[in-house]
């Protein structure tokens, strides 16, 4: 029985309830919760690195009858990512929402979203995953409306909610078919049983399409730019960095652990093809976006695309060892994007808060006025484009070499084109921001706690992950994450 897993999921739930009960304490309480989460995440990954695998049978019932929580290296890495990003966004949100009433309304939902993310990462039960997906969708949609009286923001929140519901419904239909076919919902029990039957294939399609809606893979992407582009900055950061990512995490679990006997190379290639379209199309839209936040949202579309391009390459790799390395690269890419994208959204939020808009053609002088935030945006750009020494550089390098190794050179072309386009849209932002306007009245106090989170995250993405990649690879190799691949 690993109590640490309970700490991971229950601390945010308790934080949500306490913030609701004692609103006046909620600012301080949230900071504390963020710190506890970070420490817990660190401890979790450390114990996973020393070879302990974590497992908790809720209620003391064996999985199948009850629900189990478990953490392997993949889950642990994502828990740590979520802890880092949500701490940064928490520190930031305390300053970003200047109206105290808005903050009091914000915190309980914020921690419910956090609960949903951790519960999803650790759950080992198909129906429980459905409940966490619903919690994720509802709390995220509710957060999108915080402090917003703009029609546009509400409309995109509504669309986000509805699409999320359709996605969960597809997922639930898949769950019910799996239950009818195999009589159990436990992922552990299912892993050994999945066989190639027509019903299993249909269940896989239903589960996958439900999650693909939530991952916003082309052609199911249309809801994402508006939703991520019009939510408050800390919410956008978490939506883009974490919420789409945990849906992808679930797809990895399904495709490589559960349904590996049913996965065909045709299916993998199809997914990779859609990912490639997302990479190119998302980048092109980012290149022409009028607002910074929209640019960041389209960039999320294209960066999520890379994750899907990894799939056919990994599936074609011949031996276990290279697969594990390739899988490590995939996780590294996901982490790197998560942290860098959160940094980007938080940095943009600073500018938007101070200037009152985020139109790219009116950014002139912002590098001068907000040097820290703009530096963070630039660094995040380095990590998102995938320049050395960022983690994304190593990941893309591995992707390219593996695609050549497996004789699928076209994925290399996609990766290189996407990288060039990403560089182009970041240069556009930097170019607009570095236009100087001559001496200008100094901006009145942009607090450190508003600017620092973006900078810390950007540094972590660019330097931390690049230099720490080796140890991350070790941890992932330790756990079972790539084992069943």
């Amino acid at each position, binding site marked *: *029985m690993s*109590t640490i897993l*309970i700490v991971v999921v*229950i601390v945010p*739930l*308790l934080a*949500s*309830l306490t913030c*609701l*009960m004692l*609103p*006046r304490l909620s*600012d301080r309480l949230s900071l504390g919760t963020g710190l506890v989460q970070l420490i817990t995440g660190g401890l979790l990954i450390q114990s996973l690195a020393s070879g302990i695998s974590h497992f*908790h*049978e*809720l*209620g*003391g*019932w*064996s999985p*199948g*009858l*009850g629900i189990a929580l478990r953490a392997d290296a993949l889950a642990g890495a994502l828990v740590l990512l979520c802890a880092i990003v949500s701490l940064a966004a928490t520190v930031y949100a*305390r300053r970003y929402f*200047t*109206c*105290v*009433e808005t903050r*009091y*309304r914000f915190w*309980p*939902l914020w921690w*419910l979203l956090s*609960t*949903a993310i951790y*519960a999803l990462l650790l759950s080992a039960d198909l*129906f*429980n995953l459905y*409940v*966490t997906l*619903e*919690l994720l969708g*509802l*709390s995220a949609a*509710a957060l999108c*409306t*915080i402090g917003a009286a703009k029609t546009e923001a509400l409309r995109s929140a509504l669309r986000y909610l509805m699409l999320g519901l359709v996605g969960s419904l597809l997922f639930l239909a898949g769950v019910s*078919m799996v*239950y*009818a*076919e*195999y*009589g*159990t*919902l*436990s992922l552990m*029990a299912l892993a050994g049983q999945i066989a190639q039957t*027509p*019903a299993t294939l*249909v269940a896989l399609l239903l589960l996958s399409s439900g999650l693909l809606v939530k991952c916003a893979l082309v052609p199911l992407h249309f809801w994402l730019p508006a939703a991520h582009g019009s939510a408050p900055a800390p919410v956008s950061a978490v939506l883009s960095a974490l919420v789409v990512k945990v849906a992808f995490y679930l797809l990895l679990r399904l495709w490589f652990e559960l349904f590996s006997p049913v996965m065909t190379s045709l299916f993998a290639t199809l997914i990779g093809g859609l990912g490639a379209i997302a990479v190119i199309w998302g980048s092109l839209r980012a290149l022409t976006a009028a607002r910074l936040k929209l640019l960041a949202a389209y960039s999320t579309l294209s960066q999520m695309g890379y994750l899907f391009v990894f799939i056919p390459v990994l599936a074609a790799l011949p031996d276990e060892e290279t697969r594990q390395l390739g899988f490590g690269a995939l996780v590294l890419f996901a982490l790197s994007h998560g942290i860098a994208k959160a940094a980007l959204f938080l940095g943009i939020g600073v500018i938007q808060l101070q200037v009152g808009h985020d139109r790219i053609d009116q950014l002139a002088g912002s590098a001068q006025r907000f040097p820290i935030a703009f530096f963070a945006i630039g660094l995040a750009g380095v990590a998102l484009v995938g320049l050395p020494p960022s983690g994304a550089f190593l990941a893309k390098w591995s992707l390219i070499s593996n695609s050549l190794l497996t004789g699928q050179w076209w994925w290399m072309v996609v990766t290189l084109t996407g990288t060039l386009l990403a560089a182009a849209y970041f240069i556009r932002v930097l170019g607009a921001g570095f236009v100087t306007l001559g001496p200008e009245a100094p901006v009145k106090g942009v607090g450190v706690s508003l600017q620092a989170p973006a900078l810390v995250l950007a540094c972590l993405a660019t330097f931390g992950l690049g230099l720490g990649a080796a140890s991350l690879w070790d941890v992932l190799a330790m756990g079972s994450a790539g084992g069943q691949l």
Partner: protein
Amino acid sequence: MMIWSVIDILICALVVALAMAALYAPALRQRVMFFIAFGLVVAITWARLHAPDLALAEAIIGAGLTGAMLLMSLDHTSDMPREPASYGLRIGSAAMGGVLILGLMMIVSSLYPIHDGAPTLAVSQRQVESGVSHPVTAVLLNFRAWDTLLELAVLLSAALGILNLGPARRSCGHAASLTDGLARVLVPLLILSAGYLLWKGAFAPGGAFQAGAVLASAAVVIHLTGWEKLPRVGLRSLRLLLLVGPTLFVAVGLLPLLNGQAFLQYPVELAGLLILLIESAAMVSIAGMLTLVYLGGHPHANWPIELVNPKEPM
């Protein structure tokens, strides 16, 4: 047996017909009416398939609360769909959808016969350890209690999201003496049956969700006859109302950890009592949350807290 086959075919045909009507009737008002009728027939279907818990829940929540919500929303919904897509496109998508649905139906029929999985057998074997004798309650509040706790969190996030949005729906204020008198009879009856459903959940169909939904429907009845009579709930009480269920659930779940046991692992001899305790608190919160879901907004403009100065520093 023959007669049952005929009844089954009739029920299924009715379900499909009402679903089609609720999806394709020309006016929105008609669709809502058909949807409520659909919900009632589905409740009968659950009863037919030996799922009385669901029949209760569907009648109160699926047809009742959702129906009431949809009816109230009719006022501010623009009545009609925009201009329909071209004829060819509609035929094309209908044909493709039809093929997909047919395929799905064939796959579903290939799943039969269904056999009991290991978990199903385990439920019947370990029923005695769960503290309640009604198997559905045992699954909901003991074997899969984590699902139920997260489900309360889902309800809570909907309620909080709604509270943040705007003022509650106005009562339509039919304060006529007839409805008033009806409410005077109905509300006590509803509260009574909520208590009964809660108590009964341990050994028969019923439980916190059905009971909470019945309480919420009592609030709906009061709201329909005139908002003023609904007891004024203060901000602190409102927060407590929403919290008590999930908080007690988490607290009871955490206690076994002190003994080195699992989260939510109730001691066997206390399980029945603890489940009743959790269910009572959950019922109160569920009633509050469902009422908010129905109201579609906050009853207090300054949710969540009365502030002297809204711009006060941290």
